């Protein structure tokens, strides 16, 4: 890059000017962001306040500040369903982490094949892979259920986890392909010259340079798995295996008595882990970010 050829002084001046401009625009940006944040958060704030209200007040008022604050919903909700929420949380955690592992391994291998390797029929398989994205789940639901039933996997986590290790989430394959394509081929070629195997290229070059997309995939997988209720609904029969999201659905029955306070309280609690995961991982997005290999 030509920047290195210029005298240092000009670069400093430019930086200073840029910083001043930056500060002005920053202020405006902050204002916009704060207003937008409130708009984004309002519904959640409402739910937070509802979780501290007594049951029969939840729907009567629209204001944010509850007239009487009680922890009743939290206490009740925690042990509401014969199994304590601690168990549901740990179930969700284990399931989500395993799915993250599955997706990261399987999708990155597949994406590497599509983005970097040459083989016959590649476009055909790629088109099919994209095609699976478009399949509504109702299409494959019943046949898949019967298949898992005959494999004896119903009432276990296997139907929810094994597909991840078989790269069933085309979304992540596609995402990684787009990112891998942005990494220059020269790096691969240089490595080949040095005698590296394909696997080493994948493991030592591609993966480290893809930390942003891998982090993104990890965050998303965790959250999608955490929030998914339909899979657990269909495949889990015993309450002690339920995930948090599935357990939450038992709080509310449209035809009879429901525990709205408990639902809101446990929903707020269930947001906490995924929010924390997100906060923690997003730091990797900022700091651990490798450049795309341009800087040597």
């Amino acid at each position, binding site marked *: 890059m030509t920047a290195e050829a210029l005298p240092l002084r000009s670069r400093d001046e430019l930086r200073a000017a840029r910083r001043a401009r930056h500060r002005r625009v920053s202020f405006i940006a902050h204002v916009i962001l704060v207003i937008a944040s409130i708009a984004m958060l309002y519904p959640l704030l*409402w739910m937070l306040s509802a979780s501290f209200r007594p049951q029969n007040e939840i729907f009567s008022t*629209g204001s944010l500040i509850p007239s009487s604050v009680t922890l009743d919903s939290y206490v009740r909700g925690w042990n509401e369903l014969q199994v304590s929420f601690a168990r549901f949380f740990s179930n969700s955690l284990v399931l989500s982490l395993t799915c993250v592992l599955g997706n990261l391994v399987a999708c990155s291998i597949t994406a*590497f094949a599509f983005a970097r390797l040459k083989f016959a029929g590649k476009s055909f398989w790629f088109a099919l892979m994209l095609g699976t994205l478009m399949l*509504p789940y109702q299409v494959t639901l019943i046949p898949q259920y019967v298949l898992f039933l005959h494999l004896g996997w119903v009432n276990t986590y296997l139907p929810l986890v094994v597909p991840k290790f078989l790269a069933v989430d085309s979304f992540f394959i596609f995402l990684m392909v787009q990112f891998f394509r*942005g990494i220059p081929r020269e790096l691969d070629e240089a490595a080949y010259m040095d005698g590296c195997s394909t696997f080493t290229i994948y493991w030592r070059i591609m993966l480290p340079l893809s930390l942003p997309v891998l982090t993104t995939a990890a965050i998303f997988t965790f959250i999608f798995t955490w929030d*998914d209720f339909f899979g657990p609904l269909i495949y889990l029969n015993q309450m002690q295996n339920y995930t948090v999201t599935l357990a939450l659905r038992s709080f509310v029955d449209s035809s009879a008595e429901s525990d709205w306070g408990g639902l809101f309280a446990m929903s707020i609690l269930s947001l906490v882990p995924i929010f924390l995961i997100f906060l923690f991982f997003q730091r990797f*997005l900022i700091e651990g970010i490798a450049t795309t290999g341009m800087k040597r």
Partner: protein
Amino acid sequence: MTVRPLGVEADAPTAGRTVTTSGWSRFWRKNGTGYAFLSPWLLGFFGLTIGPALISLYLSFTDFNLLQAPTLVGDANYVRIFTADPKFLQALRVTFFFVVFSVPAKLVFALLVALLLNRGLRGLPIYRAIFYLPSLLGASVAIAVLWRQLFAGDGLINKLLALIGITGPSWISNPRYALWTLVLLSVWQFGSPMIIFLAGLRQIPQDMYEAASIDGASRWRMFRSITLPLLTPVIFFNAVIQTIDAFKSFTPAFIISSGTGNPINSTLFYTLYLYQEAFGYFRMGYASALAWILLIIIAAFTGLSFLSSRFWVHYDS
């Protein structure tokens, strides 16, 4: 696994080994690595996706009520869909409307906020988390309650509008406006494309901007000539994914209308209609036909997007 660059023909055989010149062996040497890497996906694809999908294709030509064996009815389902089903047309109308309005809005917001957040502002992690929070709620039943609180006749939005003198209708329960509240719900959850845009922005090397600003380029010029072109793979990705997701969108309509698609079918998303047919009325054969039609629509749309991508998506490699 062989240790040689791909696409290169086999070397002369080493001592003691005879060369097998069968087509199969050559095929394997040329494509083996590729297929080895692809094998988990292939297994999943055939076992979990294509198998079940083909079964559902078969089912689309049957009457199948889930409780008894399917009975073949030829193309009766498809004929009914295309000639005698007003709900099908309504579902298409609602879904197209939703796609056309929610996807661009979502992408624009996601990109704008990502650009804002990418400036290295203080408090960036907090803002980013805040904007992502709504997406974390997923399919929570709580969302339906929240949306109702906001958009009912006496909800918060109308209270705010009243402050500036507008009397709003009951947005969420009026057939003219209900669908808009669902568009808004989708846009509200723009966190996912935003994160992807952020990751994409982060991949653009900083020294490109430095070089450009030294050359005297304005911010707008830099955006147009550096950011936008280099971001096109990510924009393309987000556009395709969000469109497919919008066509398949189910949960917002399901939880807000309690699965009814009301008022007066104004929120009858295609997949909601499908769900009603499959699990509400046990017409799995008909639902399978509906599902395949949706698949074809989405495939056509995606295919067109890919064709158009040659003209505007810029890959580095």
